[in-house]
């Protein structure tokens, strides 16, 4: 009798703890998002997102951070396109060309997982070292290269996951009709399209928020870059640099930039979840 009671109590105790932990996680999400949204919306104005920094911007005079928004879009857009071009063939190669037991596939997956874990500041430092080696200065091009390298592992990992459960019968059907493996790519791409979309949103979300890697490589500027060799501002760095200013008006801009960044990331994240749940049958 006593044993049963004690195990009931233990059960209840841990159940309460678990509920509390889950609630805490939930509360943290709300706290982070709410803090940034409420503080940011107080500082937000139309000028912020439609104007470039004007004269005396950094002592609190007029202007906005359009430069950072456009810079971020340039870098993220370009690297997402390049990343997609490189990672789709790699995923296809890993899953269709190579056998399940292939050593190369194992090593490549391990390498991508490890690359995924490499901190972005190391990417930044390495990218910077390479740029110095090649004689490049901080530029849009440098930012695009480093961000591309940063998001390729994310692309590949998440698309690989979607492709691994890909039914082999479909491949066999395609081969049986006489298609080469390369021609079968069309079939596979159509099948894993939702996976590709989710991976893209995930990578874009990561790319747009990463500050440590672009700090060294893309630099910062008050104008919109007109060529690949000019430096480019980015949203996370706009938040970071302006927040370290002692002027309250400049800090306000940092909060507004943080709001814009958070909204973009929230939309991407919810969009990714939507695509996954709408277009794929399995998995929660």
């Amino acid at each position, binding site marked *: 009798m006593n044993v049963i009671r004690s195990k009931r109590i*233990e*059960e209840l105790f*841990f159940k309460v703890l*678990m509920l509390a*932990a*889950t609630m805490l*996680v*939930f509360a*943290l999400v709300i*706290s982070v*998002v709410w*803090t*940034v949204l409420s*503080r940011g919306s107080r500082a937000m104005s139309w000028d912020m997102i439609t104007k470039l920094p004007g004269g005396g911007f950094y002592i609190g005079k007029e202007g906005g951070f359009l430069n950072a928004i456009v810079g971020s879009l340039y870098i993220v857009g370009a690297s997402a396109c390049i990343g997609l071009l490189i990672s789709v*063939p*790699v995923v296809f*190669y890993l899953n269709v060309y190579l056998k399940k037991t292939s050593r*190369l596939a*194992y090593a*490549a997956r*391990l*390498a*991508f*997982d*490890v*690359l995924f*874990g490499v*901190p972005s*500041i*190391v990417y*930044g*430092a*390495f990218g910077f*070292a*390479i740029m110095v080696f090649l004689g490049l200065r901080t530029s849009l091009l440098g930012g695009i290269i480093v961000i591309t390298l940063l998001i*390729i*592992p994310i692309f590949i990992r998440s698309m690989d996951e979607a492709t691994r459960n890909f039914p082999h019968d479909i491949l066999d059907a395609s081969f049986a009709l006489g298609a*080469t*493996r*390369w021609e079968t790519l069309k079939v596979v791409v159509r099948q894993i399209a939702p996976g590709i979309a989710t991976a893209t949103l*995930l990578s874009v*979300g*990561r790319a747009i*928020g*990463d*500050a*440590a890697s672009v*700090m*060294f490589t893309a630099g910062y500027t008050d104008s919109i870059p007109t060529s690949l060799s000019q430096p480019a501002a980015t949203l*996370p760095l706009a*938040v*970071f640099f302006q*927040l370290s200013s002692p002027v309250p008006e400049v800090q306000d801009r940092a*909060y507004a930039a943080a709001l814009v*960044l958070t909204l973009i*990331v929230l939309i991407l*994240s*919810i969009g990714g*979840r939507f695509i996954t749940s709408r277009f794929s049958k399995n998995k*929660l």
Partner: protein
Amino acid sequence: MPNRYEMIQRRILKDRVAQGTMCGLTVFAIVFLAAMAVGLYIKSVPVLENHSLFSLLGSSEWKPMKGEFGFLPFIAGTLWVTGLAIIMALPVSLLTGIYLTEYARPAVRKMVFPALDILAALPSVIYGVWGMLVIVPWISERVAPHFIEFSSGYTVLAAGIVLGVMVVPLLVSLFIEIFTNVPVELREASLALGATRWQTTRKVVLRKTIAGMLAATVLAVSRAMGETIAVLMVCGCVVGIPSHLLDACYPIPALIANNYGEMLSMPLYESALMFAALILFAVVLIFNLLSRIVLYRLERRSI
């Protein structure tokens, strides 16, 4: 028809070319990892030639102007912050992971998963803003006065809390993955013998996944170590070995990020910072390799 024969030849050729290209791209990933190590090493050779490895890692003299580079304060800062973050994040993530796999109804999961998604997706700099707006004032106004006279709030504790929140989604998702790999039959057997859910969890699920949980934790540690901007914004950035939780600290990633502008003007400084990146890279590489290999094994066994 020779025409048709040619067409097939061309298709096969296309397939071969594609295979070669894709193989090249895949191999490139492995080579890239090695290139990163070599590149960072080459860059840090000058500082390694001038100082012994022991003095670099073991000295706490940090005077770049005089060419003295002791990384001990930064290593200590990294260890403090990472340790604190993991100590706080681990129990919360473990309990949440267990709850979501073993207890929660699908409706609850549908609520919590998107929240975890958002937590994982938020950029580092946003966590930094949150830390500066919420955690730092809380520490300087509420927590610190109980213990010391004055604290700005930019402390090991603040960095630890922010970092802890940041690794929670990673840990929870890894735990969920590991726990769902445990066959349902094992749970059913235990429940049929009269064990409660918690007993089943503790004695079957947790015992069966110890290796996986360890690997997940190591992975989270390596992730926490490399976090830059959020930590940089709340850690205080004072060079020195922190002696307690309310001291400021200066982890390695913050050091690299903070000094990129001036590093080219001083001899050896750039090399020293590249060496810092190399340390970080080496630790993360080893941790990641070990834990991924363990996780792969587990995954394969469960299939």
